[in-house]
Each structure stands twice: as structure tokens, then as C-alpha cells.
């Protein structure tokens, strides 16, 4: 076994960043994710791997530092919680528009506005449907354990460089603040200048080569015809993500009559609800989307011949449930159950909601 520790999800994000060869972190503190930058500051990776860690003067500055680093082909990241992500939204759509790879971590808290510092999943729309302006998509990963907080940092960078598109880890205060056993990844060295040239030389703005063309990092094109062609290219990229990089997990689905669909911390709660419901003789399974974009639409559709009803469980007033309904197209009843504003549902409450809303008891 590798390096096994007991760590908070937030601390693990920081540790995983250092170990995966991240070049720079730019952030601004906000609860409940402050341990990410705090851990990085304590670890001082600049001494160890050369990774830069900087507390910017604001969220807007931090995301634009990310844009700068990403433009040079560097592995760069930022993190925040809901209100801070709203401030970063402009920079995020610019990254998507300039086709730049970067990792953004959102440890969601209850909103709207400044809201509460307690956990929520009410930023699903913001992460998956937009947040910033324009027709763009983020690759959105939803970890459900501290181990996945470790694993998805590396995966997020991998996917964002594969598609030249920003990736987001969408988590919340439950996974961020809790400690679990985690096996940390082995160290990967940061890319050398030669490696960056090989991987990203065709677009990274690292200085014009003699006889070559300038690389320009921009999301601006005033020629509408060209902008439409560019938009077609983006859409083709999003379709390729849907084709190749949907990730999900099925739990107790083989004999299920009913289905929970839940991601992140809600999926953990639903795992317990599956156990409790089955003790009562209700055969329910759980489909856990791991990528929220691209969404496991097909995988939900594959369950339709088998299940009689679906309960979408989220810590929001009902956001992901819209994507479940789009997948189901009215073929079986789909209901939503959620607690929000920082309240975490109990596994028992979820079972009661299943009985009331789906089984009609």
C-alpha cells in the first residue's frame, strides 16, 4: 500500500495538486474550502516541486492569474466556494472561450447570495449549464469520498488537457470537511519547458519561434462567421466528451425496482438509504453520476425497462432532477427530494421520501 493517511477532503485537494505536478495555485480564502490554500501554504511546495502558491487580492484576480498560467501551457488551478465561484464566472467562460485547460474546485455552500457556510449542492446549474455567459461547458467531476478528492485532481487536469477545456471539481462542505482514509498518489514531476512545448506548443503563448506563427490566447472574434465556426468546434468537442468520458457508478442496481440518482455527498447518504430501504424489502438501487457534464444520460435510460420510478436526491431545491427528467422523457415517474440552505438530509428521510413520492405509501 502507498502513503495512507487520515485527511480532510480539502487538505487532500492540496496534497494531490502538489503530487500531480501542478505548476500553480491562485486563490482567495472562503469557508468551507479555506483548508485548500491553508494546506498549500503550510506545505510550501515551491521549496519541493517549484509549484507556485499565491493568495491573490480577489477572486477575480485569482481566476485571471489562472488564465495567464494556462495560456503558457502550465497546469494551474484555483478553488473557492459558491459566492467566490460567481465572482470567477467571467474568467471561467473566458478560459472556455480561449480553449485553455485549468482546474477549478468549488466546495459548495448554501445560497443564494452569501447564504450559509454549511454544505449544499445548489450550484449544479452554475457548474453544468453555464454560470458564465455563452455556449460553453465545463468538464464537471463530482467526488463522493476523500479518496476521490485525491484522484480527481489528477483526472481533472488530464481531461482538461485532453480537451483543452477547463474542468471543475464540484464538491461540498461534507466531503471537504470530513476526514477519511486516503491513499495519496505518487509524486509526478512538473512538466519541463521541453515537455510543455511538446504537449502544448501548438497553442501555448511561450514566445514566437523563429520562422513560426505567433500563438494567440483569446476568446474574442469580431467576425461572426468565424465565431460560428469556432462554436461548432466547441460543440463537437462537447459531443466527444459525451461519447468518451461519461463516468458513473451503479450500486445495487441489478435487481432494483426503484432508483435513486444522486451525486457527491448525497450519493453517500443514498448508499445508506439503499441499505435501510432493502431492510424494509424495497428493492432500490443507486446510480451515481461521477461526471455531471458529460452526464450519464444513456446509463439512466438503460435502467428504464427495469425500474418503476426514480427519486433524484440533491441538497438543492431541484436542479439535477431536470437532467434526469430529460433522460427519462416521461417514461417513468421522476421526483425530487432535497434539503437545502445548508441542511444535510438523513438517510432515513431519503427512504421516507422514496416511500411517499415514488411508492405512493
Amino acid at each position, binding site marked *: 500500500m502507498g502513503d495512507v493517511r487520515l485527511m480532510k477532503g480539502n487538505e487532500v485537494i492540496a496534497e494531490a495538486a502538489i503530487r500531480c505536478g501542478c505548476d500553480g495555485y491562485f486563490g482567495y480564502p472562503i469557508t468551507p474550502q479555506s483548508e485548500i490554500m491553508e494546506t498549500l501554504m503550510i506545505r510550501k511546495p515551491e521549496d519541493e516541486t517549484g509549484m507556485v502558491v499565491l493568495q491573490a487580492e480577489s477572486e477575480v484576480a485569482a481566476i485571471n492569474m489562472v488564465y495567464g498560467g494556462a495560456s503558457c501551457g502550465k497546469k494551474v488551478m484555483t478553488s473557492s466556494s459558491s459566492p467566490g465561484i460567481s465572482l470567477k464566472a467571467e474568467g471561467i467562460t473566458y478560459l472556455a472561450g480561449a480553449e485553455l485547460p485549468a482546474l477549478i474546485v468549488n466546495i459548495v455552500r448554501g445560497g443564494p447570495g452569501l447564504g450559509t457556510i454549511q454544505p449544499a449542492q445548489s450550484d449544479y446549474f452554475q457548474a453544468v449549464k453555464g454560470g458564465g455567459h455563452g455556449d460553453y461547458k465545463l468538464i464537471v467531476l463530482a467526488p463522493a469520498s476523500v479518496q476521490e478528492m485525491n484522484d480527481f485532481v489528477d483526472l481533472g487536469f488530464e481531461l482538461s488537457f485532453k480537451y483543452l477545456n477547463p474542468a471543475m471539481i464540484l464538491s461540498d462542505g461534507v466531503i471537504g470537511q470530513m*476526514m477519511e482514509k486516503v491513499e495519496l498518489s505518487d509524486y509526478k514531476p512538473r512538466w519541463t519547458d521541453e515537455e510543455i512545448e511538446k504537449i502544448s506548443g501548438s497553442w501555448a503563448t511561450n514566445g514566437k519561434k523563429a520562422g513560426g506563427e505567433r500563438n494567440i490566447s483569446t476568446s474574442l472574434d469580431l467576425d461572426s462567421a468565424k465565431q460560428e465556426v469556432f462554436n461548432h468546434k466547441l460543440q463537437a468537442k462537447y459531443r466527444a466528451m459525451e461519447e468518451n468520458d461519461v463516468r458513473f457508478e451503479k450500486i445495487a442496481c441489478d435487481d432494483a425496482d426503484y432508483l435513486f440518482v444522486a451525486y457527491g455527498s448525497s450519493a453517500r447518504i443514498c448508499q445508506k438509504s439503499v441499505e435501510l430501504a432493502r431492510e424494509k424489502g424495497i428493492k432500490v438501487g443507486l446510480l451515481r453520476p461521477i461526471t455531471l457534464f458529460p452526464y450519464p444520460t444513456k446509463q439512466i435510460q438503460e435502467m428504464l425497462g427495469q425500474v418503476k420510478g426514480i427519486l433524484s436526491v440533491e441538497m438543492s431545491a431541484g436542479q439535477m432532477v431536470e437532467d434526469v427528467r430529460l433522460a427519462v422523457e416521461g417514461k417513468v415517474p421522476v421526483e425530487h427530494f432535497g434539503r437545502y440552505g445548508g441542511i444535510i438530509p438523513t438517510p432515513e428521510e431519503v427512504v421516507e421520501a422514496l416511500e411517499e413520492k415514488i411508492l405512493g405509501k
Partner: protein
Amino acid sequence: MTEEIIIAGFGGQGVLSMGKILAYSGIMQDQEVSWMPSYGPEMRGGTANVTVILSDDRISSPVLKKFDTAIILNQQSMDKFEADIKPGGTLLYDPNGITRHPERKDINIFKIPGAALAAEMGNPKTFNMIILGGFLNVKPIVKVENVKKGLEKSLPERHHKLIPLNIEAIQKGIDSVENVQVL
């Protein structure tokens, strides 16, 4: 084996660190563990609680409503969590400051005078380890040697000289549990 535990008391009593040491001990014997604190704008003297789960299998929800064991260290926590123990489950509490003793008839109840023993040892900081010892008497789910290994792994080197005192406190706790109601 899965053991779902809530530890609840005042901030400053070492509730969270006791949970952490218990979780680390679980890792030392190759178990899955989770440690979920109540977090918020809390301060010294406020209430603090943590849900700790040790299991031989993958852990489902880190957030729970019903517990196998509740370790209760103040009156507010008694009022809040006594009802949340599973029938046949276990309540361990320190009677110090408790004005309303537990009333459930369908659970096992044990007392440990942690605050008094810590004062006797001349070090109030040993309180949470005495309580942990009490828990290990009632539910020997982790071995004391694994607690020691957990302390070695979780404490910075400069604090390792305190490990023998902590082990002594755990032993004192193991030896000082009083049965109140055993089903």
C-alpha cells in the same frame, strides 16, 4: 463489523481530536474510517460533535441519524442525542455536569468519571483519552496497541513524548467504567 459512533460535548473538551485518534486507530488495523465533524461558526464553550465510523467494508453515509454508540460529555448533548441511539445500542457518558441522567430502557448505559479522573491525574488534557479508554472497555473495537500506533502516526514527532501519558490515561479509562444498565 461496522460501528457508528457519535461523540458530543463542549468545544475544548477534545471531542474532535478523540474522534480523530479513534479513526486513525481504525486505519492502523486496516479498517475503513470516516470522521464527520459538525462544523460552523463555533467557538470555545459551544457544543461540538463528530460522527466516527469504523468498518471492515466500504462506508456508506458519513452523515447519520442513528448511532450504535453515543459518547456524551455534556447535558446539551444528552438532550440532543439520547434518542438517536439504536435500540440495543450503547450510551457512555461522563456524569460531570449532567443534571438529567439518561432514561432509555432499551439501550446499554455506562458511566465514566472522566473529568474527575483527569483532575486526579493532574492534567485536564488527558480527559478525552480517559473517555476513549472507557469506550474501549465497553466496545473493544480497536486494540490499545493500534491506538498507540495511531498516536505515533498522527502526532508530530515533538509531541511523541506525550504518548505514554495518553496511553496511561486510556488505561485509566478502561479500568474506570461503571455499568448503569446492561441489557
